[in-house]
């Protein structure tokens, strides 16, 4: 490799032997092999470094929160300050409601935006939207909290589950938009053509053929973004705010797991610390289950 450049010929190799170049090549080859091993080891270590935090977090949460994860914790409301016991049932349900609101608002907008990106002919407009979505994906989540606070919370004059769900949906929209466009591009153009040649309208081709073919990937994208926002705390701090009692009303402050964990973790009470660990374990388990569901979903027959 390093000695390449001219075609090997008998004279050339004789010359090479004579000049001692062969020994140099052998030495270089040994060095190369050692380097090869070294980088293999390095990449192995890097992979371990990627995987181990997840394992460590799981083990750590299980050891510190596992014992507090009781039936009461999953089904009871928080007890008043000073009393031990109680649980986070309202926060678990609240998180589910908030994520559901975020999906209801974010998924249609994100998917339709993805369809627009896929369908629109003007490349500059597409590039502009794609760039905007990528920038939005990088906006710190607390910014979304502030935006919703000033747009919704100040106008409604109350923190609310609706505001919390809206803040989460703002995080979801650019994520869903990009994944939707990507999976739509994977649909073979032959299906589109077949539909158009049958005399279907463009809207029918998109709805009944392109979207139908890509639906698995789209659902995957939506769930992935839902799993991502389920653990968000910052955008909920001054939107959903948190609540220590049950609410199913969207115009009232709503409890959420990340918020409850945050409140409990910074409190001075050991019993609350214990519950914060259990809450973190539940949150991680929820996200893990969502990812697992995704796996099962996308493993189905390939399309």
């Amino acid at each position: 490799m390093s000695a390449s450049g001219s075609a090997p010929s008998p004279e050339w190799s004789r010359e090479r032997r004579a000049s001692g170049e062969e020994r140099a090549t052998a030495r270089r080859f040994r060095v190369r092999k050692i380097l090869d091993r070294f980088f293999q080891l390095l990449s192995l270590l890097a992979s371990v470094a990627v995987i181990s935090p997840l394992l460590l977090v799981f083990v750590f949460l299980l050891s510190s929160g596992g014992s507090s994860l009781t039936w009461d914790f999953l089904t009871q409301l928080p007890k008043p300050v000073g009393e031990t016991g109680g649980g986070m049932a309202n926060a678990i349900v609240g998180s589910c409601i908030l994520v559901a609101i975020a999906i209801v608002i974010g998924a249609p907008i994100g998917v339709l935006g993805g369809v627009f990106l896929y369908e629109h002919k003007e490349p500059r407009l597409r590039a502009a939207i794609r760039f905007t979505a990528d920038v939005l994906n990088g906006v710190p989540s607390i910014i979304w909290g502030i935006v919703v606070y000033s747009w919704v919370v100040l106008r409604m004059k109350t923190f609310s589950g609706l505001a919390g769900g809206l803040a989460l949906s703002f995080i979801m929209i650019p994520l869903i938009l990009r994944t939707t466009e990507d999976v739509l591009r994977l649909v073979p153009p032959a299906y589109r053509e077949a539909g158009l040649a049958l005399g279907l309208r463009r809207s029918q081709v998109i709805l009944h053929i392109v979207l139908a073919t890509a639906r698995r990937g789209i659902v995957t994208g939506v769930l992935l973004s839902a799993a991502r926002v389920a653990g968000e705390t910052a955008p909920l701090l001054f939107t959903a705010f948190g609540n220590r009692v049950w609410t199913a009303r969207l115009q009232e402050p709503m409890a959420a797991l990340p918020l409850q964990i945050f409140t409990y973790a910074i409190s001075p009470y050991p019993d609350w610390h214990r519950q914060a660990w259990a809450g973190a374990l539940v949150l991680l388990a929820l996200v893990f289950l969502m990812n697992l569901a995704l796996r099962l979903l996308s493993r189905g027959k390939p399309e």
Partner: protein
Amino acid sequence: MTGSAADPKRTALAGGALPQKSQPAFQIEDLHVWFGNRAVLHGVSLEIPARHVTGIIGPSGCGKSTFLRALNRMHEFTPGVRVQGKVRLFGEDIYEPRVDPILLRRRVGMVFQKSNPFPTMSIQENVLVGLRLAGIRNRGLLEERLEEALRMAALWNEVRDRLHAPGTELSGGQQQRLCIARALAVHPEVLLMDEPCSALDPIATAQIESLIRDLREHYSIVLVTHNLQEAGRTADFTAFFLEGKLIEFESTKKLFTNPSRKQTEDYLTGRFE
């Protein structure tokens, strides 16, 4: 395309009169097509007879697929394509502004090189999708059309017991016949076929070719193929295209045995490509 169901030409299979065999299906006058600045077809004029199979042959890149796509305005989805000239379908200019390309494509069905049944749909749904999305809800009519289209595509006996199975479960040749059934179910007048057998094995090819010969009883068929034997076996008339120009258009027998142009003879005897 104001031609309604009452129009005798439209209802070939619904009990109406078929077009006369002597009548032209397509009359193409001085058709030019450009991709951006590159001319792909230079002034093609041709009459495609009704209820016959017209083969289009020529080397790769001679414009035969482009020609086909100009007949149902499918080229309109390719950016930068421009068309000039006249194309009449049973006398009606298909490029007139009042013509809705959607309705045109219901009259001019198309079958592609690679079979492409919709992967999310069953065999039955694949056949009926054109009708369903055109707003037909009548179950009796749908069932009737389902069987009719599958029978015409010589697929009924093979799939009658598994109409709800996914279309993609069928073999390659069956999938292509399913695509033909899908195109036939909306009762087109013309069928455009873009190398329908080029991805199939010899047995499936033979089945599709015999199917094409049967279909010409009812349909006017334009068959693009790069397989000369296929044109020889299935087409009644054959047009030879070269570098975007129509070189010769004759009855298949005459073109293959006694071509009047030297370029045709060279192509047929394999002296280029």
